[in-house]
């Protein structure tokens, strides 16, 4: 008993959520119960920032002002509809559905009464909380949403009890309604009283409960853990869903912005030239460092850019070869980021070494950047696909020289992001043009603009060596990596951190050696390049997992051990090791790892712990006409508790396809300081016929979600494919994208 209490206390401290300090804001008109729930202290924003800034202090510490912004908003109408306003943005990851499942479960809603809405500034949501990134949404919001939903359920129960004049204990939730249990028996008496009826008949003020309501045990869940149909799909398959590129308002016009010929170049001088007199042109907007056109159509706006007189200065004329020379591991220096035991003293055995390279990549999310700006006096409304309404708000405010409070950001559906829908803000461009032209303006980047001017996945190089004793045991392992920047990109984060830490902490993600080798060392080299690089799905875990896991396969081969047995032997210590073992065994079982594959095919394995989730992947590949072909993939994932198994499977399947596209196809290069590719003709993606069949095994290892699923799997793919090709041909592939010798 004592144990359990301590345990629970630790749990809630760890989450930073103190149960009794919830504040419920009650509102709404007659016949509706509207509740915004606020955690005491800006807990969630803090947690979000913490997640992003792991390992260091930002200097941007959360304030201690009393909380006023909700993190979830419920509204129950007299007709029994339950509206849920969710503070995370739907970009295909199914977050609106998953968080609605969590809320509906604890509030005991009948699923068909649930309507899910994007939470936005209208209902007082803090834009910082809406930042949707890093697969953190479910883990951050799971517990607080349940707690407030349970509180709401109890408020409804005691009000219903008062209205019916029965003891609250006799009221049983039956799905957006209560039924009364007969006195002294188990039968439920008709008719039920719906939540809507309770709300409609309520006289006077609602009171928030004094004590924390009991939460369901996992055995009582009715929605959590089930593959509930996504709430956003009906609108999506009928074409009704509105994304940032689809935002419209009466009288809107279209904007286009002049772009530099080289990365880093700035506008020295600009004049309208003949642009203003071209057909369909409404305004030419020129100001410090910015030139753009507003026209009747997008085509006319873009065409008019060519008539502007522009003089650019500065920037880079760097070549691909120079970039590759910059992102390399120097003979010495670097920042020590992991030290276990003594690698030097134990590194004298047989050496195995290898180096790996990952090129830049485009996000290639299919919806390019887009925003609609409507200026009204000194305030502005921006409707846009953004992962971070906060960043958009601040950039729009800075661009117009107005207070952030005057900027309203409406987050629309996102047509793919993968890290690309934050930064280099199209919202600010639309705002400048709308203000300059005096009409609402929509700016939608072309594919060419997105490919050329969006930031890229940072290129990285990893080099590893290990020492084996005479029995094939690993005595020491050394990992050194060099990467271009993510968080240290001045457009994204704070370059000063690089000087303090000696690393880009996001690029270093996933670089530590978790396997239980007695002596381990990891060294980071900070190698920025003059091409904008930043978040890309998985962050550092993509190149680092590729390198570490392929190297594990190389070590297993050197030790003469099966790659599965090798990983089991060196699995991490403690509970994490148990989780490793479980996913490894699950994927081995599903894929028939111990059985010989079909002739001409071979399998490769890789595993990872990332962001709370443990995953293992097996792929089965062959070589056909000199091309690598991946036929099948099996992936076991353990994110703690799985909220929606089918949604989880979808995230994993998508990660495998995106990872495979990087493994086999994608290489973004720069010539003369500018992107070599402008569109998909020169930067092809993986297609359907090249996609493997994929089986996902979702494992629940606990009572709460501890990890995300959007990212950990991506970096497993190149490692598993490389290992499969080695098993098949004996050739080691260490540079992405793979080409066979």
């Amino acid at each position, binding site marked *: 008993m004592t144990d359990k209490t301590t345990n629970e206390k630790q749990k809630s401290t760890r989450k930073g959520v103190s149960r009794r300090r919830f504040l419920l804001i009650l509102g709404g008109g007659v016949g509706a119960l509207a509740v915004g729930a606020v955690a005491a202290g800006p807990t969630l924003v803090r947690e979000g920032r913490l997640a992003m800034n792991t390992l260091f202090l930002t200097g941007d510490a959360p304030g201690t002002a009393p909380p006023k912004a909700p993190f979830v908003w419920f509204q129950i109408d007299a007709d029994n509809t339950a509206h849920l306003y969710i503070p995370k943005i739907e*970009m*295909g990851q*199914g977050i609106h559905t998953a968080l609605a499942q969590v809320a509906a479960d604890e509030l005991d809603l009948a699923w068909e009464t649930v309507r899910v809405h994007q939470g936005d500034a209208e209902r007082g949501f803090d834009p910082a909380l809406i930042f949707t990134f890093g697969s953190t949404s479910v883990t951050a919001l799971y517990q607080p949403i349940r707690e407030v939903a349970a509180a709401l359920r109890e408020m409804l129960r005691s009000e219903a009890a008062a209205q019916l004049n029965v003891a609250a204990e006799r009221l049983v939730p039956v799905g957006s309604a209560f039924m009364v249990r007969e006195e002294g028996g188990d039968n439920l008496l008709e008719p039920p009283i719906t939540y809507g009826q309770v709300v409609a008949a309520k006289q006077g003020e609602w009171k928030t409960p004094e004590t924390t309501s009991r939460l369901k045990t996992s055995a009582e869940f009715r929605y959590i853990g089930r*593959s509930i*149909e*996504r709430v*956003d*799909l*009906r609108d*999506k*398959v*009928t*074409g*009704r*869903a*509105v*994304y940032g*590129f*689809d935002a*419209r308002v009466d009288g809107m016009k279209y904007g286009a912005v002049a772009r530099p010929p080289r990365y880093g170049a700035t506008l020295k001088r600009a004049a309208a030239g003949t642009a203003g007199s071209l057909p369909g042109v409404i305004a030419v907007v020129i100001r410090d460092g910015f030139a753009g056109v507003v026209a009747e*159509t*997008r*085509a006319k706006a873009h065409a008019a850019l060519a008539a502007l007189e522009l003089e650019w200065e500065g920037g880079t004329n760097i070549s691909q070869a120079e970039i590759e020379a910059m992102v390399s591991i120097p003979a010495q220096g670097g920042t020590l980021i992991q030290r276990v035991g003594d690698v030097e003293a134990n590194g004298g055995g047989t050496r195995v070494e290898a180096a790996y390279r990952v090129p830049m990549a485009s996000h*290639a*999310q*299919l*919806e*390019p950047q887009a925003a609609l700006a409507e200026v009204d006096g000194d305030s502005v409304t921006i409707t846009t696909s953004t992962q971070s309404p906060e960043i958009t708000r601040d950039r729009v405010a800075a661009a117009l020289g107005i207070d952030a409070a005057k900027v309203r950001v409406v987050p629309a*559906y*996102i*047509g*793919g*992001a*993968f890290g690309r829908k934050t930064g280099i803000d199209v919202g600010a461009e639309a705002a400048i043009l709308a203000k300059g032209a005096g009409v609402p303006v929509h700016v*939608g980047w*072309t*594919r060419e603009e997105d490919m050329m001017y969006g930031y890229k996945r940072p290129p990285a190089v990893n080099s590893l060596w290990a020492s084996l004793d005479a029995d094939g045991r690993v005595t020491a392992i050394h990992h050194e990596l060099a990467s271009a920047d993510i968080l240290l990109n001045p457009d994204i984060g704070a370059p000063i951190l690089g000087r303090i830490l000696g690393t880009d902490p996001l690029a270093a993600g996933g670089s530590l050696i978790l396997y239980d080798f007695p002596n381990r060392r990891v060294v980071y080299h900070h190698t920025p390049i003059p091409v904008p690089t930043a978040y890309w799905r998985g962050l550092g875990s993509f190149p680092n997992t590729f390198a570490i896991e392929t190297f594990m396969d190389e070590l297993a081969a050197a030790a003469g051990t099966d790659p599965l047995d090798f990983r089991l032997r060196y699995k991490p210590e403690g509970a994490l090791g148990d989780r490793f073992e479980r996913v490894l065994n699950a994927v081995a079982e599903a894929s028939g790892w111990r059985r010989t594959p079909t002739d001409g095919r071979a399998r490769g394995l890789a595993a990872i712990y990332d962001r709370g989730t443990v995953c293992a992947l097996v792929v089965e590949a062959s070589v056909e006409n000199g091309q690598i072909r991946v036929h099948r993939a099996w992936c076991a994932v353990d994110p703690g508790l799985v909220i929606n198994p*089918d*949604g989880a499977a*979808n*995230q994993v*399947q*998508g*990660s*495998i*396809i*995106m990872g495979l*596209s990087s493994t086999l196809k994608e290489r973004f290069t720069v010539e003369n300081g500018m992107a070599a590719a402008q*569109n*998909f*003709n020169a930067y092809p*993606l*993986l*297609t*359907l*016929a090249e*996609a*493997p*069949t*994929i089986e996902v095994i979702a494992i629940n290892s606990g009572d709460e979600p501890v990890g995300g699923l959007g990212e950990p799997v991506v970096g497993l793919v190149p490692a598993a494919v490389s290992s499969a090709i080695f098993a098949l041909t004996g050739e080691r592939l260490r540079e992405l994208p793979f080409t066979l010798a």
Partner: protein
Amino acid sequence: MQLTINNQDYEVAADPDDMLLWVIRDTLGLTGTKYGCGAGICGSCTIHLDGEAVRSCITKVSAAEGVAITTIEGLAMLSDDGEEVLHPVQQAFVETQTPQCSWCMSGQMMTAAAFLASNPQPTDEEIDAAMNNNYCRCGCYARIRTAVARAAEIAQEGAA
């Protein structure tokens, strides 16, 4: 010029060389048809001209005059009592929970609908070939295959 989209006539002032995609999206506000590349590569902008799948980003509006245009908004039907009845392809894409962000999915579904109309009982290889020229960056390919096969079944059931 006059365009007929989803059985409705529209009078539009457009330059004959304007691309159909932007007339549909921006001029007429039918934003279900998506833009992904403007170069005929990704398939996001796929619509039907007289039942045939075409890429509206590289189709001039003049080519669509006097032709029945169908967009994703016109794929579902209305039942006699005014209820929206999803097309078998839309039903199948929902049933299999195929879309993620769904930006590519209007194009995927329009491609699939035209394909199944001409080949109601396709083999897996035929599905792969028919759907191979539509990108999905979210990586829904495995489900798209299943969804198209399922749509063929639903259409058969409906016809039976």
